[in-house]
């Protein structure tokens, strides 16, 4: 069981690293486009590509935010409750988040199938919509795992986010 949990934690972390790599690709493409425009060689379809990398990146990092409890909340009341009740409250919140994500996955899959049926593509480069939806569906599914892992005591400390804006 511990191996399974450790493996899933690594998968969520790997997904997060891939997501940030996608952001980096979006940043580099945009900078290349800014420089390229000055030289008369803009990057073709930069908006399509940046949207793809950011949408994909976002859904690849969201599971990590769930796993590490990075989502903002107010602990003022919960922290003043007895320890056992605090645990119950966190469990209820986690289960509610998992139910929400499961419903999201179900309905997003339906929307995805509908868009595939219509053969939707991006506006500039004609990138099949499949490439936009794949990381999204994977990210929602992995977020359910991320919430579950967030409720599981960690043997190894996960590097936590230091701050919020």
């Amino acid at each position: 069981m511990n191996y399974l949990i450790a493996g899933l934690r690594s998968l969520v972390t790997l997904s997060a690293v891939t997501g940030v790599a996608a952001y980096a690709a979006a940043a580099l493409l945009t900078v290349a486009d800014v420089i390229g425009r000055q030289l008369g060689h803009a990057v073709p379809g930069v908006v399509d590509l940046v949207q793809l990398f950011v949408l994909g990146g976002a859904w690849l990092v969201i599971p990590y935010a769930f796993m590490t409890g990075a989502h903002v909340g107010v602990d003022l009341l919960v922290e003043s409750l007895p320890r056992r009740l605090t645990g119950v409250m966190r469990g209820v919140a986690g289960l509610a988040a998992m139910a929400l994500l499961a419903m999201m996955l179900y309905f997003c899959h339906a929307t995805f199938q509908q868009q595939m049926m219509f053969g939707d593509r991006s506006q500039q480069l004609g990138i099949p919509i499949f490439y936009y939806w794949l990381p999204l569906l994977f990210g929602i599914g992995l977020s359910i795992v991320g919430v579950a892992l967030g409720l599981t005591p960690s043997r190894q400390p996960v590097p936590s986010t230091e701050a919020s804006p």
Partner: protein
Amino acid sequence: MSGAMLGLAGFGLTLVLIAFGFPVAVAMALVGVGGFWWLNGVMGAGFILGSSPFEAIFPYSLSVVPLFVMMGVFAARAGLSRSLFDMVNSFLGHVRGGLAVTGVGACAIFGAICGSSLATVATMGRVAIPEMQKRGYDGSLSSASIAAGGTLGVLIPPSILLVIYGLLTQTSIGQLFIGAILPGILGALLYGLAIVVRVRMAPHLAPSTPRAGWGVRLAALRRVWGVVVLFALVIGGIYLGWFSPTEAAAVGAVGAFVLALLSGELTRDALRGAVLETAGLSGMIFFILIGASLFNYFLETTGLPRALIDGIDGSGLSPAMVLALIMLFYIILGCFMDAMSMILLTVPFLAPVAASLDFDMVWFGILVVTVAEIGLITPPIGMNLFVVQATQPELTQRTVIRGILPFILADVVRLVLLAAIPALTLWLPGKMF
């Protein structure tokens, strides 16, 4: 129950769920979906659940969010905090209370680059507070000046909160950034004034320190040239019309990475930490945007924003009184909620009210973010108060809170000035290319 009452009940239920420990994004999403289901049936709820996770993240303008987060995270890891503190200290350290003013100034610059209030307090607190303690500064003054200084990063561009406000209200992010410059500088000046006045009244709080020579000052300036260039490029580029905000964010992210690399601070572990911090922060922001999108579907269906506008029209209240009430509402809410959640939860129904009263949306946005800043240092849950204490465990929460009142007063003065003189916010955007 009328639609508007249902909207209010939904707002109340969201606050209750948040109070009971639900993450803000999850609480907003659950109430949004549940309420929409109640009003439009399962197919309606299915529609918003199947489209929001895509639509809330897909717009190109949203690319600024992860890119500014990356810029902030890498800039924070470039070892800038010490250099910035030394640079400001070389110019202001000799004034009585100057080290505390230095802390505020360094926080303002660091916060502007980093964009995160809590990261600014955590980083600068470790650098500035020990230095002040070494020179005999009172703990309440040193800790409170850093806690307050940290809030400036929320407003001084590039600011994630302004980006989110801009996206929610369809207001130009570039204009918001430029509009925030003078209010941010005003905030830093008023904090400095608060320190000077407090030290005048109680000189024992801050002994004087020797003046630095020009050689020291120039050497300190040389160590921070990278930050100055990066900030000037990002904000100056937007102001001069060289870049869109998304392009400026990309330039900033790549620039901050290069600075961190050149600083020699970006070890393998630091890089891993930066990547995972970017993931956690941006993941949190994106999911909260999805939650807000679901909540807004519900809110719009209830007609609450329209009912609020009609109610205000019929109440006979002047626009100034409505603005004062909105600001008071934010100050009270800010005592219990973090700034981003507060903005995401309330702007969708308060922005239409502001628009109906012909408020300039850039001006209103700066006021909202300024008042949200105040929440970061107001007890009982002003996050910066906790973070600054965490950097110096020997400080008590009571010590920090004892010193924070002059800064809250400075914030209130700033809020009144910004509300009374819209030109403080709108003059610079009016000069944009």
